[in-house]
């Protein structure tokens, strides 16, 4: 165990370094080709550590567009990966993620509803948007669990099926609302909310995503051993001395908060929360004390690069980042399905 624990920490340190490099690279890759040193100069200048000799335009591209965008991508990737880890543990379902349980679609619907109500100033919006996304995620979760319970049990298969139904339904309602009310460029808005996009990233989205992570991550880390215990089954877990129901409920709400914040920042980006936990678990093992930090860092690195691809690959247009994560995520999802099936057969 000592060896695997050491290598798991090694992985987290490597991922942390990779994240720093990825953020720097993402901030320098783009239509306006900027060198790494220019990017660093601007960043250090804003941190008050240097005096950059760059144009106002360059400064704005780096500090107002690329840096917040890369940081939002990192925070959203981390948040979604952690949400996925928690969901998979709580439902004991390897195929669970926020998207499958309807949280993302609920959050999208909440966010779109607020946008279309046309709340006044930008500041009101920056509070109302994540709040509505959180409420939407929470209602979607309640609907999924309610349907699962009505259908018999909170068993893994029932929850995923109920979540799928809620998710599809809410996504359709979101599309409908946008088509009925928005004018002009509504197709792109639909895509941005349902497939996810980081085009709207700003320092506000960085703050929203970072605050959500700062609130939820400590709880998940503190309860890492409880998440481990869920693998034994509900009764055996509870017999270790904690309330399974309370733990599950609190963490479901925490994940709704996380997902709501992430969706308000970037729309419903799929597959990060499903695939990253599996990829990282293969390297760290299933002990959440090691899995959670590594998954957070891995999710951050993954989404920073996925977004960099999304905004450069079909230059000058921009792909929704959800397209990139799905193109990578779907084959990985199929692999997980096939492996799970093989295990259950043998």
């Amino acid at each position, binding site marked *: *165990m000592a060896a*695997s624990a050491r290598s798991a920490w090694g992985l987290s340190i490597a991922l942390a370094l990779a994240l720093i490099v990825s953020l720097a690279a993402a901030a320098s890759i783009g239509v306006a080709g900027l060198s790494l040193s220019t990017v660093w100069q601007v960043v250090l200048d804003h941190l008050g550590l240097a005096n950059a000799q760059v144009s106002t335009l360059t400064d704005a591209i780096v500090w107002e567009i690329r840096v917040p965008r890369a940081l939002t991508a990192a925070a959203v990737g981390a948040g979604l990966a952690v949400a996925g880890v928690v969901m998979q543990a709580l439902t*004991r379902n390897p195929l669970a993620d926020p998207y499958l349980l309807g949280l993302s679609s609920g959050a999208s619907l909440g966010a779109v509803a607020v946008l279309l109500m046309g709340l006044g100033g930008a500041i009101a919006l920056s509070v109302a948007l994540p709040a509505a996304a959180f409420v939407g995620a929470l209602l979607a979760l309640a609907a999924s669990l309610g349907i699962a319970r009505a259908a018999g049990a909170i068993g893994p298969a029932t929850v995923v099926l109920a979540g799928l139904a809620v998710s599809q339904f809410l996504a359709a309602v979101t599309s409908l609302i946008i088509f009925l009310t928005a004018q002009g460029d509504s197709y792109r808005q639909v895509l941005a909310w349902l497939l996810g996009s980081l085009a709207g990233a700003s320092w506000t989205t960085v703050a929203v995503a970072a605050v959500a992570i700062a609130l939820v991550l400590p709880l998940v880390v503190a309860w890492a*051993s409880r998440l*481990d*215990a869920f*693998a*034994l*089954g509900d*009764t*055996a877990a*509870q*017999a*270790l*001395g*904690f*309330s399974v129901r309370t733990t599950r409920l609190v963490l479901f709400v925490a994940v709704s908060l996380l997902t709501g914040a992430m969706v308000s920042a970037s729309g419903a980006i799929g597959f990060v929360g499903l695939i990253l936990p599996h990829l990282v*678990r293969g390297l760290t*093992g*299933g*002990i959440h004390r090691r899995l959670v930090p590594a998954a957070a860092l891995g999710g951050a690195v993954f989404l920073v690069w996925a977004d960099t691809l999304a905004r450069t690959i079909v230059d000058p247009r921009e792909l929704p980042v959800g397209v990139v994560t799905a193109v990578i995520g779907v084959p990985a999802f199929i692999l997980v399905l096939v492996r799970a099936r093989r*295990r259950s057969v043998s």
Partner: protein
Amino acid sequence: MSGVGVRLDAVSVTRSGRRVLDDVTLEVPAGTVLGVVGPNGAGKSTLLAGIAGTLPVTSGTVWLGERDVATLRLRDIARTVAWMEQHSERDIAMTVEEIVGLGTFPHRERGWSRSHQADAVAGALRAARAEHLSRQAWSGLSGGERQRVSIARALAQRPRVLLLDEPTNHLDVAAQLATLEFVSKLGITVIAALHDLNHAARYCDTVAVLDRGSLDRIGPQREALSSETIARVFGVATSILSHPDDGRAVIALDGHLGETGYRA
């Protein structure tokens, strides 16, 4: 390790309007092995859950030694009572050491160091004679090995009462007997819900027969597992033989007594 006695005083459990356990009174002396038998739905698992405190009882009292379970925190119960689940087909991405380590959960508090943890895990693995498995992945273990690891996980809890819910399900015969023989010699109080009447007769000091939530009989194996009781509760005809070595009851199944049975 020594056991602590368990006593149920007129315990009833009602679940969604149905009485799944009805006025059960019984006593399990410290360090003895009680086998709980009964048809599916007789309330065996509910009885265990009531003792583990994972399911609150509707009325009556469950005593762990001198303490009323209803007044204890889950954590305090977990320091006395361990629960061993059925053999799990589930894949868990953990090593044997990591799974056994979960058993220390109720004991972890300020000052619980890495070396405390390592010692507790090593001790439990040794006690369960599973040291050789310590570094293996759970997913690669056989059914018998998994059960051995689950025992170690339960022992890491340093329990004085061990609850087993159909511990032999899905195991081959050798693993079934190895599991029961091992837990019956632990010296702590053991309460096991069992399907196989011969397992109850062979490994338990006392046998309790549950029927539709009520306690039908409790006593030494030969008293509790009479042909009449088995016929009434399980609906099967049996002949009770004596084992040639130790004279313990051996239950030979003769046939089904219901309407579709050939002896009906």
